[in-house]
């Protein structure tokens, strides 16, 4: 069995070679779903270390980007053994960075983690206008709408998006979760979202709670 702590550390150290080698070796043993979920968790914990080191100014933005790429290649390697028994998706999430904001590192991390947890994520990209969210919600009928943003103005765009979902009569049919550094409880209330988080793993847990 793969050494989970060593994996977490390798992700935290951004040691790509080691991470990918460990995962390939692991997948070759044809592991069960439960084991794989534990491995995904270990990767997520590694990402949390990266976040901490970024906050401590140890890592640069380039390192964050690298970490995001590393996580997505890790999940790609694990995908074949992840769904294992249950290939059905647990739910659909329409996700995007809201209008006016081009930041997407956090959104992509959440996307990867949500996919690893079995969600089908429809990623609308960055700078997504409220109207596009409305259109996609109509078309895809997801259980969840996820909005990301780190600019202060993102909060206004999030509010606008929720308002337009209401106007279109779609708000009651979905749960809305918002993420990114500036989101707070107060912002969540004013925006009219159902939940907020500044932690992708917690966001995934909240979403899992909704589709149970």
């Amino acid at each position: 069995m793969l050494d989970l702590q060593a994996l977490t550390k390798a992700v935290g150290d951004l040691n790509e070679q080691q991470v990918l080698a460990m995962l390939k070796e692991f997948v070759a043993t044809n592991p069960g779903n439960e084991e794989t979920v534990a491995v995904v968790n270990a990767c997520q914990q590694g990402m949390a270390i990266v976040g901490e080191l970024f906050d401590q100014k140890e890592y640069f933005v380039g390192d964050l980007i690298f970490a995001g790429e590393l996580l997505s290649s890790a999940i790609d390697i694990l995908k074949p053994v992840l769904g294992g028994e249950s290939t059905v998706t647990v739910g659909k999430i329409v996700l995007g960075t809201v209008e006016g904001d081009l930041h997407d590192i956090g959104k992509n991390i959440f996307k990867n983690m949500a996919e690893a947890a079995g969600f089908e994520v429809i990623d609308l990209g960055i700078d997504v206008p409220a109207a596009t969210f409305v259109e996609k919600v109509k078309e895809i009928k997801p259980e969840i709408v996820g909005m990301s943003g780190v600019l202060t103005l993102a909060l206004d765009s999030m509010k606008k998006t929720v308002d337009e979902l209401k106007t279109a009569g779609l708000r009651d049919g979905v749960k809305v979760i918002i993420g990114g550094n500036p989101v707070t409880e107060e912002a969540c209330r004013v925006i009219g979202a159902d939940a907020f988080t500044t932690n992708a793993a917690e966001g995934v847990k909240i979403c899992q709670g909704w589709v149970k």
Partner: protein
Amino acid sequence: MSKVIIACQTISDELNLAMRATGCSYPVIRMASDYHMDPNLLRAKLQEEIDKLTDFQDVLLAYGCCGNGLVGLKASTAGLIIPRTEDCISMVLSRPGEKFERLKRTYFLTRGWLQGSKSIAAEYEHACERYGEARARKLFKFMLKNYNYLMVIDTGAYPLADCLSKAEELAGNTGLEVVVSKGSVWLLQKLLTGPYDEDFSVIPRGGTVNSSHFGMAGAAPAHQAI
């Protein structure tokens, strides 16, 4: 009525110009640019400075909302006067009385933005050291995949040539196109002289900055119909 200025190093050139232009001689506390990379740290550092002040009537904060870096500040020792603007980019690119529309797909630079130890140029160097040049280029292409332009803002506060050659180099390495646009220091000048009208939020001593002070979502009435 005595005032003190607390300013981000990023807009040092622009503040100096505004001070010269208005003949302002208030004392200035300059804060490292690096703090703006971490809004929570920025807030803590600003609060530390404000808490230390004695015998000033008002603090003029040469900042914007800066990713909520200013939200939550307490006017512990003096009143706070803050421009109602998003960040230093909207501060120098906006025009009096007009709503500011941020240009899309654009990364903005001034000399001040290039100088911090966490500036985009420093980032690039770090990435080259850590991952080698080829990988660094790839990372930056990815980091900036949502961007087409590198805009140098000519605020009139520094010699453009310096910044322009660095910008060209960075643009070459990251596949962006350099554009130059005129900015101005009108809002900074007004911060120094007043009047403190709708372009500013005035937080009396004892108050706390909240997001409505920047006209953000927090300003909307909380009783909105669901």
